């Protein structure tokens, strides 16, 4: 309301610069890759099979995640028990978990020599295989079942408790309750949750790299990696990246039409007291979900402690590089998200468009981004010295959508609560930023930075293209230990990476919470 009176010059300039940078990162790099392509190669049967596999695995992953999340969310919604809040917090953890660590944990449980294989071996069954389509889907469900559970649980708790009370007073059975209260809610929430997970799984790289591969289980992102790494076919990579943009764009349009749930996690500590349903069945669902999440992590911890002594000396250098890249990436994310959010906030009509630019990187391929940056700069700068800065920049761009999601509502709240007071006191420009926006935005900004730091710490993307002992990061070192079947060392490195990621998130996020006035 009062924004119109704000001088917006510095916001326009800095926000505009970020919009330009992001556009260049998402589309400019794609252009650079296409421009350097020597021959125009068509998409052959292999590439189309990658497209089919990408969509199929994303469909299966989101289907299993959402369908399994429904009973788990219902159990959380209607049961109060010791440790409930801790478990719900844990449901948020996979988001900041390094993908390669989770994959190793899943291998320890579901792999050829894993717990499940050993157990069924007692009864004379063949060990199970984790590589291929079902492994990729398993890992995606591991990451997204918790997300789906949180989104659907939010939907459950958004149903006013009075309605369940009324239903109980009318002596509704479980079936009636479902038909009249829960089914309408699920019809509203589930399609959105499904779409979010579908989108996330479409651009998956590290999971497919570690558990997929081979002509039958290659995702588009993995095909881009192979086009760069083995064929150095730039035009094929650019075409695949365009295809990925098209698919994600179509998915985003469908999502807009479906309306995606918010799921910021406000008020998940409430319980709607109910007497229907079986306590044992609910307990079973919660127990299974918790075991599915916790056992792989417990395996990392248990075997990792022993593996710490098996770590090659080079691992510490890699760990240090990862910490530096993650810290820089977290800072850069804040430096990008703040001007972008301020610009989106200050514009009336174009605000949504500016915000959309911040979300574009979800559809972009980080591999194309990284390669494009190399192509644009290698004439002037030695590519080896650029590996870490490029990783940092690409990581920041990939974290931006999540940071933006955390920052935008907070910014709107500050304007709603204190915008008029600040305007009446002639606080504008730097004074407004310094004395109003920054102090009040500390929490969401720190949360965004913490997410970016943790994501960057665990990232196995661009860096995989430019593997080089001098600029190796910890996730890459871990992947190479796994590839060399040095499993004890791999578990040790995984424990180290897990600890660093969680510590990074916790430290930055806590920094934003300390001494914050209500």
């Amino acid at each position, binding site marked *: *309301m*009062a924004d*119109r*009176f*704000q001088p917006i010059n510095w916001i326009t300039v800095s926000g505009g610069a970020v919009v330009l940078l992001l556009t260049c990162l998402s589309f400019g790099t794609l252009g650079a890759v296409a421009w350097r392509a020597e021959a125009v190669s068509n998409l052959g049967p292999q590439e189309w099979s990658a497209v089919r596999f990408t969509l199929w695995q994303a469909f299966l992953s989101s289907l299993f995640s959402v369908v399994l999340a429904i009973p788990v969310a219902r159990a959380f919604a209607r049961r109060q028990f010791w440790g409930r809040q801790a478990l719900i917090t844990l449901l948020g953890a996979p988001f900041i978990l390094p993908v390669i660590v989770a994959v190793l944990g899943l291998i320890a449980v579901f792999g050829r020599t894993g717990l499940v294989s050993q157990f069924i071996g007692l009864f004379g069954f063949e060990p199970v295989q984790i590589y291929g389509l079902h492994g990729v889907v398993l890992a995606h469900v591991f990451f997204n079942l918790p997300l789906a559970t949180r989104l659907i649980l939010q939907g459950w708790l958004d149903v006013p408790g009075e309605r369940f009370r009324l239903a109980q007073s009318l002596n509704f059975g479980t079936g009636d309750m479902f038909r009249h209260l829960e089914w309408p809610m699920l019809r509203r929430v589930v399609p959105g949750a499904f779409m979010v997970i579908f989108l996330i799984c479409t651009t998956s790289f590290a999971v497919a790299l570690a558990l997929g591969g081979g002509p039958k289980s290659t995702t588009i992102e993995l095909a881009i990696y192979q086009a760069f790494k083995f064929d150095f076919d730039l035009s094929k990579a650019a075409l695949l990246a365009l295809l990925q943009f098209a698919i994600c764009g179509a998915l985003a349009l469908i999502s807009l039409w479906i309306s995606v749930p918010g799921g910021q996690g406000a008020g998940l500590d409430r319980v709607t007291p109910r007497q229907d349903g079986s306590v044992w069945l609910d307990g079973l669902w919660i127990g299974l979900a918790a075991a599915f999440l916790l056992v792989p992590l417990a395996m990392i911890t248990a075997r990792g402690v022993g593996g710490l002594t098996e770590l090659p000396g080079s691992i510490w250098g890699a760990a240090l590089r990862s910490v530096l890249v993650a810290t820089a990436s977290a800072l850069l994310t804040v430096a990008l998200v703040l001007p972008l959010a301020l610009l989106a906030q200050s514009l009336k009509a174009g605000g949504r468009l500016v915000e959309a630019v911040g979300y574009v990187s979800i559809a972009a391929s980080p591999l194309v981004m990284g390669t494009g940056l190399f192509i644009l700069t290698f004439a002037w700068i030695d590519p080896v010295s650029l590996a870490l800065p490029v990783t940092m920049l690409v990581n920041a761009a990939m974290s931006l959508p999540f940071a933006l999601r955390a920052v935008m509502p907070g910014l709107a709240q500050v304007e709603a*609560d*204190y915008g*008029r*007071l600040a*305007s*009446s*006191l*002639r*606080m*504008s420009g*730097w*004074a*407004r930023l*310094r*004395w*109003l926006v920054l*102090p*009040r935005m500390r929490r969401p900004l720190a949360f965004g930075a913490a997410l970016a730091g943790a994501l960057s710490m665990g990232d196995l993307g661009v860096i995989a293209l430019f593997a080089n002992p001098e600029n190796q990061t910890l996730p890459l070192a871990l992947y190479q230990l796994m590839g060399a079947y040095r499993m004890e060392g791999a578990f040790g490195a995984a424990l180290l990476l897990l600890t660093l990621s969680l510590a990074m998130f916790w430290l930055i996020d806590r920094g934003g919470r300390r001494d*914050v*006035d*209500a």
Partner: protein
Amino acid sequence: MLTLEEVLVRQGAFEIAADFSVKSGARVALIGPSGAGKSTVLSVIAGFIAPVRGRLTMSGADVTGAAPGARPLSILFQDSNLFPHLTVFQNVALGIRPNLKLSAEEQARTMAALENVGLAGFEDRKPAALSGGQQSRAALARVLLRDTPLLLLDEPFSALGPALKVEMLDLVQSIAAENGTTLLMVTHDPEDALRICESAILVADGRAHAPVPTAGLLDNPPDSLRDYLGK
């Protein structure tokens, strides 16, 4: 001092017209049924809502298109008059220096304003460490420091108990009298209006009427006000 010439405000389907002037140094209440647009009129004067038509002048200068901070007035809202992350001193000093770069003289004036409202010794506290009455005093210290010719109150004391509210109204009155400030105050309580405002503007039926003596208006209310007052 303050003139609204044929002003028309539109908020969606809601419209309100205002055409009145207030003399310099006058203390005027805005009375009327809830939802009639009392706060809207105040928001227009403060510059948060632009009128679709008409002209607004203050001390003879046209301020119709001026930004809120560029108008010669102070405003206290119903809530959020202090920034919770700043100290009492910083909150008050913002009234004269939006960037908080104060000269020694300005620092002394800020301290003097705090002393004037009885908050000496509280300057380093955050608002959360103050009582409701003390928070109101801190906001009034800023009004005092700004020393603008016009003061707008949008029911800033409605959350206080009756005794404390009267205390604050008296403090407002003494500040206004001391500086010759023109006061415009939204209220839903006729007692508040009678206590410190000699005239009142009736806001009802899509119109902000010209100010008339408060006592006369309340003793002999038009229909639109009578229902609200319950007389």
